[in-house]
């Protein structure tokens, strides 16, 4: 409770929370905000009003305009919110969990186990991510779950390494030495002192990553693996703007909406996670306690 009160006291974190809530509301009310057309097999398929390639300006029926191929941008943004949460949270939560487990085990046991686990991290890190994604898609078909699987399988390593280095660093710090000297058990030290503190860089990384998983997913879609073009995904919307950045006849801003709307959505989403993540860290980090009224 104290945490929440503290959260609300910091103006930046309030902004972040408000933004996140805003997105949550959009995600929750997507079916009402943007009705799927009858021919769609899934609400995540963006409806197409016509098949011209050139994007159409915002106007009646298309408040945000359309992308290349006439996919409605407004619809894509609304349902893309759900996609952003699904991909972002899904991938980061699972990935961070796996990564932290491995990182912690490596840091605590040290020695051979550490070596082997870190070499495993090396193997996964040097694994050509695109290949795995491509082969997986060829075998398992395309879709959002396959995308998430690829992203998780090749995203957990970062958390493992960061957590491990933090743990190594903290293990030798003063207050841990002190705790050891005063006879605290290993378990107590780990749970009470090390993990809560080592966790922060991971939190920082994770909140950053949540916002940007959408971009990673769209890179896959762009290459033909991942979700079908026209799937409600902000990153895909931006990809569809790729050829239109130059504008038309000397006016580079002719198709501004194809870039700005999805870009703003991602920007605000990433910003929200950043602010909340930072605020959480500021509050939960014992070393910073007492300095939140800056």
């Amino acid at each position: 409770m104290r945490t929440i009160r503290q959260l609300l006291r910091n103006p930046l974190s309030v902004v972040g929370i408000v933004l996140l809530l805003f997105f949550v509301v959009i995600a929750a009310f997507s079916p009402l905000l943007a009705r799927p057309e009858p021919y769609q097999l899934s609400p995540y398929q963006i409806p197409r009003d016509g098949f011209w390639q050139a994007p159409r300006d915002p106007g009646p029926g298309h408040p945000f305009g359309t992308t290349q191929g006439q996919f409605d941008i407004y619809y894509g943004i609304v349902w893309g919110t759900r996609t952003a949460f699904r991909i972002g949270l899904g991938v980061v939560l699972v990935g961070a969990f796996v990564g932290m487990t491995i990182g912690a085990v490596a840091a605590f046991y040290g020695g051979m186990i550490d070596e082997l686990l870190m070499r495993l991290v090396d193997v996964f890190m040097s694994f050509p991510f695109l290949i795995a994604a491509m082969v997986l898609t060829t075998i398992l078909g395309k879709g959002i779950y396959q995308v998430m699987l690829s992203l998780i399988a090749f995203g957990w390593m970062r958390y493992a390494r960061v957590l491990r280095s933090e743990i190594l660093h903290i293990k030798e710090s003063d207050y841990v030495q002190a705790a050891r000297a005063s006879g605290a058990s290993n378990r107590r030290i780990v749970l009470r002192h090390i993990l809560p503190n080592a966790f922060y860089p991971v939190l920082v990384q994770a909140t950053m990553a949540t916002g940007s998983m959408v971009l990673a997913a769209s890179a896959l879609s762009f290459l033909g693996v991942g979700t079908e073009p026209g799937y409600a995904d902000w990153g895909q919307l931006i990809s569809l703007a790729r050829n239109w950045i130059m504008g038309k006849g000397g006016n580079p801003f002719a198709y501004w909406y194809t870039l700005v709307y999805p870009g703003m959505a991602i920007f605000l989403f990433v910003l929200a996670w950043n602010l909340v993540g930072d605020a959480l860290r500021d509050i939960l980090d014992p070393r910073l306690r007492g300095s939140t009224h800056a």
Partner: protein
Amino acid sequence: MLSYAIRRLLFLPIVLILLALMIFALQMMLTPMQRLALYAPSPDYLKGGETFIRSLIDLYGLDDPFFVQFGRWIGNVVRGNLGWSETARMPVGQAIALLFPATLELALFSFIPVILGAIWLGTKAATHHNRLTDHSVRVFTILGWSFPDFVFGLLALMVFYGSLRWFPPGRLSPAMDAIVRSDAFHRYTRMNVLDAILNGNGRVMLDSLRHLVLPVITLAYVNWASMVRIMRSSMLETLRQDYVTTARAKGLTERKVENRHARRNALLPVTTVSGFVVAWMMGGVVIIESIFDYHGLGRFAANAAANLDFSAILGFALYFAVLLVIVNLVVDLLYAYLDPRVKLG
């Protein structure tokens, strides 16, 4: 430290074999027909009907059992032959050797603005915590993170090449390219700037620098966000540590506090992350390369991936694994140097 480094490197072959096995296993999950697509990249090549297709599958040994194919590949690698890349149209080793300098050059030139810029921006933001500078830096960098890299790349290209004609795409202009390819010019490293200096050719040097500007700036900008963030938060933490307060109490100037005490420790997580960034850049950055018509390892690898060119994929994976092990080792050593309390291994 040396023994630690050697121990780490001894693990390298294990990493490589494990990696190769994993990739091979993936390869085996595909049907022979799916793998044939590499050698018959469009419908034109499959017009021969079933028998023709069957004979192609036999020709490339796509139906052989896993261990036969893996054994064949390992046998070749041990002899220094990484196989043939259909997508690159040349032996895998040669492709990597030819494209590596381009990627290295780009990475080297980008490294400094990325890392130093991030450290500087992160410090500025941390020391002006919650004030305007802090907010501006954060918004600026998050903006860079939110858009895919091609957006900035294309915008930069439009402005600086399309309108101003200052910085063109590619690595060299045609006239300079002809000079570099001529017999008079010795390509020692195939890194154009360095070679130009070694050949004493100022025009080529300026020309290649000119072509590097846009990709470097774009790479820096899209990467700043994550690094600035780490730097900033770890700087914030450090600034509030007791020993910093002590230093302040001792009367040291804020500047000295920052530089001597806080920064060194704040750099620790940054070191880890810069390792990733450098490794990532050395793996080639496919979108930047596509936009700026810069042929490096990124496009090679992406092309190989898209076409399921497993020889190239394996070769590239090995290269990247070696690179990564070395980078991680350097990072860990640096870490130990920056924080003497950390014991290695």
